[in-house]
């Protein structure tokens, strides 16, 4: 891995911001250079949300991702429409097929379709759809290990929410399996 530039997008509440922070945190634990840049706007709930994460072996230049994204994780249709064009040729796009019926329109990128909400419901919690998507991304790119993400999760959750760690770990693994 040289430099991974990932755009994560969805609607507010799908956990795209925390998914990005988690990957950033895990990158830091693995001594990589990282940055996390959110979009921010006046809307507090229900709007679109996206963030740009860079994980690199060398110092991060601009934290902004323009048309050079190596990956995009899109959780809803507007995000696919908006960010497909930011991928560079040969990049990976992971599409939440539970909520997006449309296929990727570009042929020069690798598209993966993950029914994230369905898998999340199977393991008992719709809220971990973001972890399913992240698991799939990690399986494809090996930017950081799932174990490191779990370690990051333990730190982010704090003592009161440690009981949520196994569910999230399962979600990451199910996501990884879905693209194997």
């Amino acid at each position, binding site marked *: 891995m040289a430099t991974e530039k990932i755009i994560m997008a969805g609607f507010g509440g799908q956990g795209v911001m925390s998914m990005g*922070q988690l990957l*950033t*945190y895990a990158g*830091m634990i693995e001594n990589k250079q*990282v*940055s*996390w*840049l*959110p979009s*921010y*706007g*006046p809307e507090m709930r229900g709007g679109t949300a996206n963030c740009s994460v860079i994980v690199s072996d060398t110092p*991060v*230049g*601009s*934290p*902004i991702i*323009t*048309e050079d994204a190596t990956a995009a994780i899109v959780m809803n249709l507007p995000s696919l429409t908006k960010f497909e064009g930011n991928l560079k040729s040969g990049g990976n796009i992971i599409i939440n097929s539970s909520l997006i019926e449309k296929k990727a329109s570009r042929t020069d990128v690798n598209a993966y379709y993950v029914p994230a909400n369905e898998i999340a419901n199977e393991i008992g919690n719709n809220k971990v759809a973001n972890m399913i998507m992240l698991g799939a991304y990690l399986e494809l790119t090996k930017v950081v290990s799932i174990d490191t993400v779990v370690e990051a999760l333990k730190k982010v959750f704090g003592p009161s929410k440690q009981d949520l760690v196994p569910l999230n770990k399962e979600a990451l693994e199910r996501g990884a399996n879905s693209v194997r």
Partner: protein
Amino acid sequence: MDKVLMKGNEAIGAAAIKAGCKYFFGYPITPQNELPEFMSRELPKIDGVFVQAESEVAAINMIYGAAGTGARVMTSSSSPGVALKQEGISYIAGAELPCVIVNISRGGPGLGGIQPSQADYFQSTRGGGNGDYRHLVYAPASLQEAVDLTIEAFDVADYYRNPVIVIGDGMIGQMMEPVEFKEPKKRELPNKDWATTGTKGERRPNIINSLALDPAELEKHNIKLDKKYKEIEKNEVRYEMYKMDKAEVVMVAYGTTARIVKNAIDALREEGINAGLIRPITLWPFPNKAFNEIPDTAKALLSVEMSMGQMIDDVKIANEGRLPVHFYGRAGGMIPTPEAIMDKVKEIIGGGK
């Protein structure tokens, strides 16, 4: 100490606390809200005080009062809010009190927008308030630098008895990067024997004041301030030179824009075009001397800003007419892309041939 992943606004707050700041007075405005929120959460834990003022005007005047006691104090805001603080900043500079003011800036004029912008260059470096005064302006490009400069800002403010501004665009406030809290280099700091802490009946009263009705007395004060500002210009200039070797076009950019420019420079060099960067870390004092280190290969300067061109005035002053000065900027919260910057460089080189 281990690295921690933090949002810029919170990292700046943590840096201030690390520097011994226990008092914060502020007012909500996007995109700096996580900073006062962080202070309201953390300061009570260390026996400090957070006050949400009724306005930015009140907040900076609370800073004026608190700084008068000799305490380390900070306020933060964003562009329109910093405009409101200019009255207090002028008084603080006039009365020679130390304090740190953070501007996580956004687009303007007026209410403008809330996306990243560098349109407060004039406001920061020319003084938005009245009178003959100056203050140091630090412009970090990364969160680590924001932390380091915030910590140092308190020492510098105390050393010179002068307000210090830390300016970051919305990206610096909102992004997350790993940061480490290091000890700054030690400065010998003067005693704060001027502070209003009560005479205890042991000394003459101290007076914090910016009024001098006698013109001769005020001029004397102006000359004294000017001497101090010259001292700051001599000692505190900071800048970074990036890939200046054989540079044909030398770009000048600060803050997060400089990071985008670095990406553009790397890509240009891969294409065989030699470009370099002067990155001012202090906007005032401006790094004029960096322009003496520009290699003979340089054909032009290019100021890249997230504004319609404000720093370019200082670039022209520093350049002293030696090279043609070009400009590329985006405004209103639009962010320059490396590709557009590369195109501009190619256009300049093409035009020069």
